[in-house]
């Protein structure tokens, strides 16, 4: 499986890099000029097995960086917001996948969050981030400051724990015989 080797040429990123490399380089240059030290790390497809560039931003600057990407770099579409449990310190990585409808490029922003640490919400920039942040909270237990309605979205509201954390048991069933409480005030 050539996809899994560490050679950047073997990944799908090789083709994309030939096509969009210059665009990405100029965009990352603009990000570095704007944010300087607050950009922690940049992983390019030419040197790391990834399909699109990964920009690690400090947690305090992530909303500003995403806003800059949206307004100046024309990444108008938040195609995904998710997280990973790295089992290291800091524990979680939040992943923001963006797509540009004008330049047809994608870019990935990441920020590292410690356990029991809150991250600012993205709802004010992309309202669609509302449910995705709820999913991240449900699955990983990462809380978002300023989120309008941070409840569980997939699991039962009586559920204890966050199932996609690495230390959650694979077969940690919690069976409920009664259906969960319906929030009638939300039905309005």
């Amino acid at each position, binding site marked *: 499986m050539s996809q899994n080797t560490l050679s950047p040429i073997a990944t799908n990123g090789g083709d994309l890099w030939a096509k969009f490399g210059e665009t990405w380089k100029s965009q990352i240059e603009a990000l570095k000029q704007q944010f300087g030290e607050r950009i922690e790390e940049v992983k390019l497809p030419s040197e790391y097995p990834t399909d699109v560039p990964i920009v690690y931003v400090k947690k305090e600057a992530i909303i500003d960086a995403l806003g800059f990407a949206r307004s100046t770099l024309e990444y108008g579409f938040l195609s995904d917001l998710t997280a990973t449990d790295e089992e290291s310190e800091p524990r979680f990585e939040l992943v923001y996948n963006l797509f540009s409808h004008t330049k047809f490029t994608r870019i990935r922003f990441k920020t590292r969050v410690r356990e029991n640490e809150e991250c600012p919400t993205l709802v004010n920039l992309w309202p669609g981030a509302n449910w995705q942040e709820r999913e991240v909270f449900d699955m990983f237990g990462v809380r978002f400051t300023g989120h309008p309605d941070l409840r569980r979205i*997939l*699991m039962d509201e009586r559920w204890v724990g966050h199932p996609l954390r690495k230390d*959650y048991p694979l*077969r940690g069933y919690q*069976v409920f015989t*009664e259906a969960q409480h319906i929030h009638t005030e939300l039905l309005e």
Partner: protein
Amino acid sequence: MSKDGSIGYLTTRLEDFVNWGRKNAMWPLPFGTSCCGIEMMATMCSDYDIARFGAEAMRFSPRQADLLIVAGIINLKMAPILKSVYDQMGDPKFVLSMGACASSGGIFNVYSVLQGIDTMIPVDVYVPGCPPSPEGVLHGLIRLQGMVARGETNSQKRERAQNEARRQMKGV
């Protein structure tokens, strides 16, 4: 019975006669949650035609159905809903667990999936397969019909036990 109609009746036990009616006119509630549901639809359609066994009247209201076909994966969040659907069905009620997921959780031995609906509600017939073929579902239905005729389903056993307890309380 002769052709001139001189003996126009059969002798039978009332319970057997009622069970004969039950087994030949089952009204299924199709609880299809995944790919097994598609196979169940194929079973209903003309190629396999579940109507040949008198079970073509699909009812999406539990009050009108007596056969619960659980076709597909039951998540833990769905489990209480399945239970309330089963509870709302009138007695006697029969449950056909269709496919690996409904019977045992199947390949989904993870935190979010109920490990077999028999942990939640009593099941009469398990149909194996992933998904089972329509022939398998029909075979399960025929087996269930035999069980109903003999009074072996969970619901009928429960009813007999209740009647027995009532008789003993009355001292008959």
